[in-house]
């Protein structure tokens, strides 16, 4: 992984940096709490944590405009928080309670928000890719200038429907950004063991879709790439591929012992490339914030996360009648 040290761009304001710090920290603390609640048996089934990859979604959200759409796989908590969905609603969905964003009927992998233009939360690997392409189709049909950020992983990148989507998106010049979050492992399979050509950003070449690799641990680099891609889409030039080179610190899901990589590998990523630590260093070194300022933010985030956990524990189970609702219009 060729991550480069985050170099603060001259035009990055203090407020912007603080915003990134805050949002990335919210995701990390939220996910840590989710892991804790899972261990306590309050969250069931699958639970895929986003810890380590925070810069990808926070950087791209900074490049999005109001009305842009986004959707992703089942590793979706970070995306929801980043686009402004209520942490309480997300956490209560994880615990399967009536206060959850899907009234407890969706679970960790299936949440949506019309307000935040978040279109899931998809549990079938790769299925969100044609769906995101279809959202972009709708934007183009309505000529509303919207762009759809369609996130998927390095594992999904080998699904056939991804290339069916690339073909149609390029053919019809749809405003969709394909964000390949390459966190190096598809569950337990390293990219080089599953991909004959591991450079994911080149996967659109035969469709003439431009692509670029981005240091996904550097939120500023992510934002810059996101803006370039979004400008490309908004100019009517069709789809764009961003390969985000990133890393997940935790297992694929809560039940993954992660024997396929060494503890040292994970530790090295955390020490040398952590996205939150990078922004923290920029803030402190640039004298934009003091340790105390950042501690105050940490405290504030902790309170938000604790409130969400409390809400998720207190919120009642869905009423039994809910079994039979929301099936048909």
């Amino acid at each position, binding site marked *: 992984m060729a991550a480069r040290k985050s170099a603060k761009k001259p035009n990055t304001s203090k407020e912007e940096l603080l915003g990134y710090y805050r949002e990335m920290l919210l995701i990390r603390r939220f996910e840590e709490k989710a892991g804790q609640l899972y261990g306590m048996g309050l969250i069931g089934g699958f639970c895929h944590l986003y810890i380590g990859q925070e810069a990808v979604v926070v950087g791209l959200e900074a490049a999005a405009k109001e009305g842009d*759409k986004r959707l992703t796989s089942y590793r979706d908590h970070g995306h929801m928080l980043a686009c402004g969905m209520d942490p309480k609603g997300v956490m209560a969905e994880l615990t399967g309670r009536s206060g*959850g*964003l*899907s*009234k*407890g*009927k*969706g679970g960790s992998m*299936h*949440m*949506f*928000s*019309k307000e935040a233009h978040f*279109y*899931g*939360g*998809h*549990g*079938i690997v790769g*299925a969100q*890719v*044609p*769906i*995101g*392409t*279809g*959202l*972009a*189709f*709708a*934007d183009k*049909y*309505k000529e509303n200038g919207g762009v759809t950020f369609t996130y998927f992983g390095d594992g999904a990148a080998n699904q*056939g*429907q991804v290339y*069916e*989507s690339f*073909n*149609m998106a390029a*053919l019809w010049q749809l405003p969709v950004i394909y964000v390949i979050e390459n966190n190096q492992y598809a569950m337990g399979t390293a990219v080089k063991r599953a991909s004959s050509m591991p450079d994911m950003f080149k996967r659109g070449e035969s469709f003439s879709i431009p692509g670029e690799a981005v240091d996904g641990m550097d939120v500023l680099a992510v934002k810059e790439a996101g803006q370039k891609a979004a400008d490309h889409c908004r100019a009517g030039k069709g789809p764009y591929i961003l390969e985000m080179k990133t890393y997940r610190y935790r297992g694929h899901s809560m039940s993954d012992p992660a024997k396929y990589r060494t503890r040292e590998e994970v530790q090295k990523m955390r020490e040398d490339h952590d996205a939150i630590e990078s922004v923290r260093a920029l803030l402190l070194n640039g004298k934009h914030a003091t340790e105390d300022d950042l501690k105050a933010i940490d405290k504030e985030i902790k309170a938000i996360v604790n409130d969400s956990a409390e809400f998720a524990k207190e919120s009642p189970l869905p009423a039994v009648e809910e079994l039979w*609702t*929301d*099936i*048909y*219009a």
Partner: protein
Amino acid sequence: MATEILMPALSPTMEEGTLAKWLVKEGDTVTSGDVIAEIETDKATMEFEAVDEGIMGKILVAEGTEAVKVNTAIAVLIEEGESADDLAAPAPAAAPAAEAPAPATASAPATPVETVVPEDPEIPEGTEMRKTTVREALRDAMAEEMRSDDSVFLMGEEVAEYQGAYKVSQGLLDEFGARRVIDTPITEHGFAGLAAGAAMGGLRPVVEFMTFNFAMQAIDHIINTAAKTRYMSGGQMTCPIVFRGPNGAAARVGAQHSQDYAAWYAQIPGLHVAMPYSAADAKGLMKTAIRGDNPVVFLENELLYGQSFDVPVMDDFTVPFGKARIWREGSDVTIVSFGIGMTYALEAADKLAEDGISAEVIDLRTLRPLDTDTVIRSVMKTNRCVTVEEGWPVASIGNHISAVLMEQAFDYLDAPVLNMTGKDVPMPYAANLEKLALITTEEVIAAVKAVTYR
């Protein structure tokens, strides 16, 4: 030696066609590969090439003749030195059938008997009726809904410039343009997912599968995306989409192109499933499907496309989902069917009447929601029930009807419910085997006689 030129079958289901134009005249020399005539099927006008060489001796069927049966001799080729006059008594079947393969009459369903469509409470008395094919009715339904709502669009393979592989979308590109009538690449999984996304994004896609056999490539999006989104989102997100196309056996197209998916999709909560028989129902149900906010699997049938039925001339004729239609009232037995199965059910009922058995025939029209009330009410009257469908016997729609009747009308049954289905085999190609694999009218009649103890 004279060679007969026979009316060719130009599609797997063609039984007759119009000899639109002769491009040669008597006395012309014909070389193999020459286009000698234009033949019109209900789907397209096709050029007809000569296979044999010779001199056009006699044209037996004049141009402009309609309803020329496949395999009818339409002309005779003669050789140098022969005279057309020698052909007064054509050699019986001496000439090899040089043209397209023999027609698939073996497996085509019986021509529908002239059934008087029962009064429909949704159609005001005195409404003008117009003979319309199922194909036209479906097209009209889509066109009407597209006219009234810009968010409705049609997407699929060959739907636009080709005018539809089965000509169901004929004329739609001309009227609505390429923005709303969209030819897709051959990429079912991809375009089904794309359309589901477009539906979530506020549009109302109508997705044509060239046949439902190909929709198996896309079934993840039909079930996991379209059917479950509303539930998984706690009611926030909708996916108003229609997946439509021909379903079930056509004729002589073998195992991978001859499958009835009625029972498959009918099992899925979150989907609506329509499978019309008549043109009026095809139109009314299609309009309801497009307008509704639920994902709909709309199962059509290639063999029914060309059949004509009365369709009411109304500004806005719709048929509700979940309401069966009683096609024929009767007192001795209830025959429950849907889609092309109705062809066998109605023909059986006609023949049974000659034997003094009065059959009530119910067309379910939609399989989800399923109008079990109408079936139960009928069986409470007749005390006997036979179900008819083309699909396989295991976990069939008939099995479900049987279970419902056992649970809710057990005391009214005087005989076991019999499920008449296609045979439990992949569809064979050979004409005789294909005929055996499909349900037949005779089997329906035998089942009715069994349950009525005749």
